[in-house]
């Protein structure tokens, strides 16, 4: 019998079965490096904010694995776009390792439970970046992460994950076919869809994760209920910090 939480996370599956395989994937296959600009507080949950690339959320799996030693309560719970949960096998796997649908309610409840979360504010736009757009950062929503940090009183930690766009070298995307299949787009890589599901396996590339310093949004906003322009300004500050870390990782 699986012991699942309300989001379908199976801790036994994650720690005993999936984690060793993800360890191999990140350390050996993708030769992933992680660098912390400063040590993170270990006694409290955190909201990580990261860039996003690739049709499949490889960056979420990597972040979850490499940040695990730095967390007060592992595993890290990635907040992902809706479409990944509609994919057979992949959506199920992501659910069982602790990924949840990106929503403020989910994030707040997980933070209340003591989990740290990682948000990808670029959303599906980030996932749809082609190989050439990989180092660009899309718009960070409309300040949802700032509002989340303010209402939960949890610090934000910017995160740059570089190299995922090379693991899924998307040449272009097919929007109409994707939408007909219920997806935001269909990626075309040198191997997908030509090799079928095999083409979805990431290519062996070097991935660098740079973890920034915690940010207190309350301090930046000046109040618990800031105006819309202040939220957007802080949102942009966080975006520029993530971009800076992404460029550091890309060097």
């Amino acid at each position, binding site marked *: 019998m699986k012991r*699942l939480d309300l*989001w379908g996370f199976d801790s036994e599956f994650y720690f005993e079965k999936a984690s060793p395989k993800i360890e191999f994937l990140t350390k050996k296959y993708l030769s992933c490096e992680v660098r912390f600009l400063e040590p993170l507080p270990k006694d409290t949950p955190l909201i990580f904010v990261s860039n996003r690339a690739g049709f499949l959320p490889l960056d979420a799996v990597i972040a979850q694995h490499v940040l695990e030693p730095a967390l007060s309560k592992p595993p890290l719970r990635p907040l992902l776009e809706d479409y990944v949960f509609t994919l057979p096998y992949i959506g199920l796997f992501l659910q069982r390792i602790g990924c949840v649908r990106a929503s403020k309610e989910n994030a707040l409840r997980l933070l209340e439970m003591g989990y740290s979360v990682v948000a990808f504010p670029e959303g599906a736009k980030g996932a749809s970046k082609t190989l050439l757009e990989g180092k660009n950062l899309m718009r960070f929503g409309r300040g949802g992460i700032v509002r989340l940090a303010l209402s939960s009183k949890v610090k934000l930690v910017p995160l740059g994950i570089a190299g995922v766009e090379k693991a899924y070298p998307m040449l272009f995307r097919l929007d109409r076919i994707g939408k007909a299949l219920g997806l935001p787009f269909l990626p075309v890589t040198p191997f997908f869809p030509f090799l079928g599901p095999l083409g979805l396996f990431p290519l062996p590339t070097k991935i660098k994760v740079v973890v920034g310093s915690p940010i207190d949004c309350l301090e930046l906003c000046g109040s618990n209920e800031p105006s819309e322009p202040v939220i957007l300004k802080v949102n942009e500050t966080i975006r520029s910090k993530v971009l800076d870390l992404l460029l550091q990782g890309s060097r």
Partner: protein
Amino acid sequence: MSGGLRIALTGCNAVIGRKCLENLHLFERLERVVVFDIQPPAVQDKRVIYYQIDLAQPGVEQEMASVLKDEAVEAFLHAAFFWNTTRDSEWAHEVESVGTDRVLASVIEAKVKRFVLTSSATVYGITHRNATPLAETAPLFAPKTLPPWRDKVEADIKVQRFADEHKEISVTIIRSAVLLHKSIDRFLSRTFAQRFLPVFMGFDPIFQFVHPDDLVLFYVKALSEDHRGVYNVAPEDVIALSDIIKLGNKIAIPLPHVPFSSFYRILWASGIGEVHPAFLNFLRFSLIVDGRKAQKEFGITPRSTLETVREFLGVP
């Protein structure tokens, strides 16, 4: 009049109405139960009075209001909904959506103090968006993802609006997670009672189940005391489809969802099959609700999903 509780209900042969009538002993100081339905109730009790009423008929609200006034009814339970697919969607619309208008009109006319609506978590729809503990404020996606539930959503929304416009009446909407019991004839109960279970390859949805004996406790309280608002009733645990299969020693039949769903849609359109194709989404997506608000407000904790499933499957 001795001053005891006097209630009225519709849908006496649907699960909730029937359960309430079977459990009249749970009400403190109950004096009278007025039943409005096409068919008489199966339960016989001297406190129960039956009036033959068809909610699909225009003008029944006057008749109901007059009975409610004469019987000095204090609380009204509206439970006349079809929880199995019917192909006669026009009739279902008359009973569920328009019928709710008629019930509400009679409640205003008779100045009933308390109104309780039976709803279901399925009004949130069965979609990948709902694999998350949904609060009562979550949007109701059923009209898009579960078309036969359109009228139930309309009724739910009408009653919410009614609650805003008639603050003098205490209005409670109870949206329960899926009911599972051998006595219930609904899609999932029927599916899980089979030896062979269809599963969609690559999906393993999680479920929350409520035991009808627990759900009736919420209704008894809602009819006896003021608990204004919308409440999700659900336990705090979930179970995966694969675990139900293991636990019940059942045999899974893996099916590819796209070809099978398309094939079934053609069958349904040809008049074959008794379950609307939208219900197949139960085999792909989870529907999880946050039941904490109801548990806190009513002071009732429903038994766990696992206990309900074990009882249903007859396994210790």
